[in-house]
């Protein structure tokens, strides 16, 4: 499979390419009542490479993702995409500015078909007016027809065309994760956040998806990879950030980070 080609053919030709921009986190903090879940975290997620975020269970990884995605408020600090401040923006505006995500516990429209699940991902690209939707004007149904074709392209390239009409909830775990990724990619994001995308998959499946992530990054997308699988992260990421009990304890290239005594301590459970 030629992933860079996939990306160009189904993204770039229809919509103008998005300028790549860096997502910056500065002093991001989240308190729930008296508990500080994320404390003073600052790092960048630049385009064109995969940035890793690892840490033991309960380290605050998903809280951080939810703050970036606009689901949780920030107690302190700010988040910017390029120069645009996103700290207060609601989830849908964050998504419209070009940030897509997958969910740690897969969230698909279980009874809708796989094709329909991917189709909703194109929402951000829809241009037909409300009036044309309501009146059933050609602009509306042409758009639906075009997006359907593009959703099929995406399915083909993920090797999922056989399941197009299958209810998404009835698929295997690995296939459901793929549907979620296709849906996120359909939004043509500048930044893609993957929350444990290969959890529960075997090494072959994981490697296959890893190749996809790498090719997306090569094409200029910013990718944030949250994973437990340390070898997987080591192989893919240019930079790794390690969270432990809400604090950023290490940042840097994989080799350096993994030799860091604080990281070793956190992973052995003595920190």
């Amino acid at each position, binding site marked *: 499979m030629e992933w860079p080609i996939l990306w160009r053919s189904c993204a770039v030709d229809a919509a103008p390419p998005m300028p790549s921009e860096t997502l910056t986190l500065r002093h991001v903090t989240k308190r729930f009542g008296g508990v500080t879940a994320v404390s003073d975290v600052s790092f960048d997620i630049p385009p064109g490479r995969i940035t890793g975020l690892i840490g033991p269970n309960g380290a605050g990884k998903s809280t951080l993702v939810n703050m970036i995605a*606009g*689901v*949780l*408020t920030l107690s302190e600090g700010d988040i910017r995409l390029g120069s645009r401040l996103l700290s*207060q923006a*609601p*989830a849908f505006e964050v998504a419209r500015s070009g940030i897509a995500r997958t969910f740690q516990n897969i969230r698909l429209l279980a009874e809708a078909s796989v094709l329909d699940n991917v189709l909703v991902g194109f929402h951000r690209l829809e241009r037909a007016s409300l009036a044309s939707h309501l009146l059933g004007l050609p602009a509306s149904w042409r758009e639906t027809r075009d997006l359907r074709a593009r959703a099929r392209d995406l399915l083909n390239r993920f090797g999922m065309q056989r399941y197009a009409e299958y209810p998404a909830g009835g698929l295997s775990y690995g296939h459901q994760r793929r549907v979620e990724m296709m849906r996120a990619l359909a939004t043509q994001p500048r930044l893609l956040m993957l929350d444990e995308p290969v959890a529960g998959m075997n090494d072959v499946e994981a490697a296959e998806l890893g190749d996809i992530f790498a090719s997306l990054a090569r094409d200029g997308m910013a990718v944030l990879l949250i994973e437990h699988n340390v070898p997987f992260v080591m192989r893919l990421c240019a930079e790794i950030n390690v969270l432990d009990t809400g604090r950023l304890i290490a940042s840097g290239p994989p080799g350096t980070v993994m030799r860091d005594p604080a990281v070793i301590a956190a992973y052995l459970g003595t920190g």
Partner: protein
Amino acid sequence: MLAQQIMNGLVAGAVYALFALGFTLVFGVHRILNLAHGALLMAGAFIGLYAVLAGIPLWFAIILAMVGAGTLSVLIDVLAFRRLRASGQAEFGAIISSIGANLVLVSIAQRISETKVLRFPFATFPVVFYRFWGLRVSLLQLAIAGSVAFLLGLLSWLIFHTSLGRQVRAVAGNPRAAVLLGVNPDAIYLRTFFLSGAMAGLAGVLVGLSFNSVHFMMGEPYLLRAFVVVILGGLGSIAGAVVAGMGLGVLQTLATAYLPSGLTDTIIFSLLFLVLMVRPNGLFGVANTGVGRR
């Protein structure tokens, strides 16, 4: 005159509070709106009335009404809600299912009463009035105030000072965590539904005695007012329900006395609407109304 109206309002409000407490308790523990709660009030009034007509003394008829309405409430939980709880669609489903339960109970009552308004026999409750500080108080009003105060005390003791209460609060806070702590949620649901039904049943007998009128549609206005009470007081808040219930009783009595007739309902429901717009969590509420970032 104003003082008399306020006192009458407080007594009426005590019944609203008693009725709304069960409604808000079920929401607090269960996260479901039980729209059959009004039918439970009606059922309590029916059981009490038919028991009295059968020659049973009033105090025992009241106990029968409470046990009967409590049992019906548990039945509703088992038949109409238990399956939904597992499905994850409980919020919408429970509204629908409880509307169904309400229709069933109301139409059975309509059948039994042949659509007639029923009355307690004369002097079921002694008609005695007392006067002090220029106020006229009936023995019935005193009994209502006394029994509501007693039940509120009992309920807050149950919730805040017993292991049942701790379990109820645990399930209300987080059912899954409560299971891990060894609480059996089904047992808690059963008890909260029984308590809630029993309080509605008592409210039904008290309403029936106060207005000396029992009919199959009597639950609906109380259900609608329960919405006002629980939203004003905050959905799921016990203290809020009590304060808001009394407040609503006074407001309603004053509106009826001093404003053009027919405007009372408009005012009450406009108030409900406005509170939802301005402060959906009510005066005491903590529930998340769920918009935007959390």
